[in-house]
């Protein structure tokens, strides 16, 4: 029996034929190839778009760096693009971006992580279904609306209650940026905590841990990769944001003195590009300098993006490892 080759006897009547007709097999092949080609093309378009953006920014920024050198741009704090002689020290702009970004993170990270813990571990499932979308709406509000709020509400309040000369400053911009970055942080950190799983939570509670001990000693360490990624994503949101910092940070290209003066006005890289673009003639050194600023900004966010991918990959990889 075992040695016999299977016989090709017709045993039952199959209503629909099991073999493709010659026309059908070619048709299927063609549809398959065309479908794949279409999907490939659409996917490549976005990759090509990113590469083109890099290409054009570098094409404009390179002549600037060749003419004025790299040292002045990165180390000098004198930004007088229209002066004679013109000076292109982007130090104040980079410092401005740094100040508002770090300030925003100081507000957003503790708040975001605590809210994520609350959502994932404490709030009942039904309430979470309502609260999470509401938080995510915060991310959908146009940034100009935030900027408007910063100027109309926050700035006068700061001026009146803290006796400041100007209400548009680092503190104001950081506060608003934090509100904008918080939904991203909450959303990604909450996903990481939920993905860490009910199993771990039960394991910890069954060993006699309280809810607080479970969160601090098990859940947060288990989700740390995802939480770091959440922080980096929030940071990218803050560093790349333009409208709010343009409206709320005061636009004074200076380094605050003393350095911890969070009520000083600063000017960020993004606000400089947006603000100066209309004032700089095409082809002028000023215009090229703005592209150099743009390239610096792009390099920052690109590195942050790589870092967040790294940590998100690790948190997903960790999840897989545990399931195995």
């Amino acid at each position, binding site marked *: 029996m075992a040695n016999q080759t299977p016989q090709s006897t017709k045993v039952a009547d199959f209503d629909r034929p099991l073999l493709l007709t010659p026309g059908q097999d070619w048709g299927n092949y063609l549809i398959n190839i065309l479908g794949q080609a279409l999907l490939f093309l659409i996917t490549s378009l976005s990759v090509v778009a990113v590469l083109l953006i890099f290409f054009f920014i570098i094409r404009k920024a390179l002549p600037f760096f060749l003419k004025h050198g790299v040292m002045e741009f990165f180390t000098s704090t004198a930004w007088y693009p229209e002066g004679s002689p013109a000076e292109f020290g982007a130090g104040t702009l980079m410092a401005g971006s740094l100040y508002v970004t770090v300030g925003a993170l100081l507000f957003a990270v503790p708040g975001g992580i605590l809210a994520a813990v609350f959502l994932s571990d404490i709030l009942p499932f039904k309430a979470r279904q309502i609260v999470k979308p509401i938080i995510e709406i915060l991310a959908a509000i146009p940034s100009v609306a935030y900027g408007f709020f910063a100027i109309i509400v926050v700035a006068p309040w700061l001026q009146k209650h803290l006796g400041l000369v100007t209400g548009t400053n680092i503190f104001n911009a950081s506060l608003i940026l934090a509100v904008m970055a918080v939904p991203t942080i909450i959303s990604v950190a909450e996903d990481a905590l939920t993905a860490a799983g009910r199993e771990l939570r039960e394991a910890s509670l069954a060993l006699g841990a309280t809810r607080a001990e479970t969160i601090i000693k098990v859940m947060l360490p*288990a989700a740390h990769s995802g939480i770091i990624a959440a922080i980096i994503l929030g940071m990218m949101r803050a560093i790349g944001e333009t409208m709010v910092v343009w409206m709320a940070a005061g636009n004074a290209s200076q380094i605050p003195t003393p350095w911890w003066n969070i009520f000083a006005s600063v000017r960020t890289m993004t606000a400089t590009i947006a603000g100066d673009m209309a004032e700089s003639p095409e082809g002028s050194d000023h215009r090229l300098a703005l592209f150099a600023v743009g390239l610096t900004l792009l390099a920052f966010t690109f590195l942050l993006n790589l870092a967040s991918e790294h940590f998100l990959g690790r948190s997903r990889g960790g999840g897989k490892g545990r399931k195995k």
Partner: protein
Amino acid sequence: MNIDPEINPEETDMTQTQIPQLAKNNSSVRLAQMQMFSADSYATLVAAEPAIITSHNFSLFYGDKAGVKDVTMDIYPRSVTAIIGPSGCGKSTFLRSINRMNDLIPHTRAEGGLMVNGINVYDKQINLVNLRQQVGMVFQKPNPFPKSIYDNIAYGPRLQSVKRRSDLDNMVEQCLRSAALWDEVKDDLKKSALALSGGQQQRLCIARALATKPKVLLMDEPCSALDPVATGRIEELMTQLKDTYTIVIVTHNMQQAARVSERTAFFCLGELIEYDLTRTIFTNPSIKQTEDYVTGRFG
């Protein structure tokens, strides 16, 4: 954190040496009773010891639906009690009621009495931390923490404020030995627990549960994610552990229940159908439904 007097570092050694003695005493008691009663009275013998877990008309509701209905049964110390039954029959619900793990599910409500060592676990005054430390649990899917092997075992003792390195070292070694894992992992205690195989992970979870010095060990289908070899090792381990601990195991595997347990409870649709010596349940059950289930005609 509450400090359970039993895990006081000074007393640790004492309790550890007491355990074998207790077991010995117990077997001599058994021997004496064996002589008192006639040959085939193992049932009477075990029942002569007071029950450690007593369920009296216990029901647990999810919202309006009863997960467990009117269960009355006694579970005896230093033996293995198996709970069998078809899926969704309330076995796990009952098991998870004993250490109040069902609290994690919203809208659960308990009725009747479920006593552990004479205390109703659904009492408002219950100390959940102490209850769960002394009624340990092993879950269906191995769930080690994403930490080192050492830190997994030391998690429970550290919660009880055991800080001295030497105490922790001793405890880790002892628990891993009890769980028959020491020889396999003693050289890489710093390695991540996630690098272990499924069977090793489950033994690690058992060792982790032993580290809080429980009196009762609840096992919720502990072998369902394991291959037959790993299952065999866990079953072997259970027969060793039952000299010291009271083990309650929920299982889908009837052969497993027959192999490891002294007593077996058969649940169906949230109700306890029959509860007797394992031998009786599998050879001469008094209820038709039980017989149909254990012989494979139903379920």
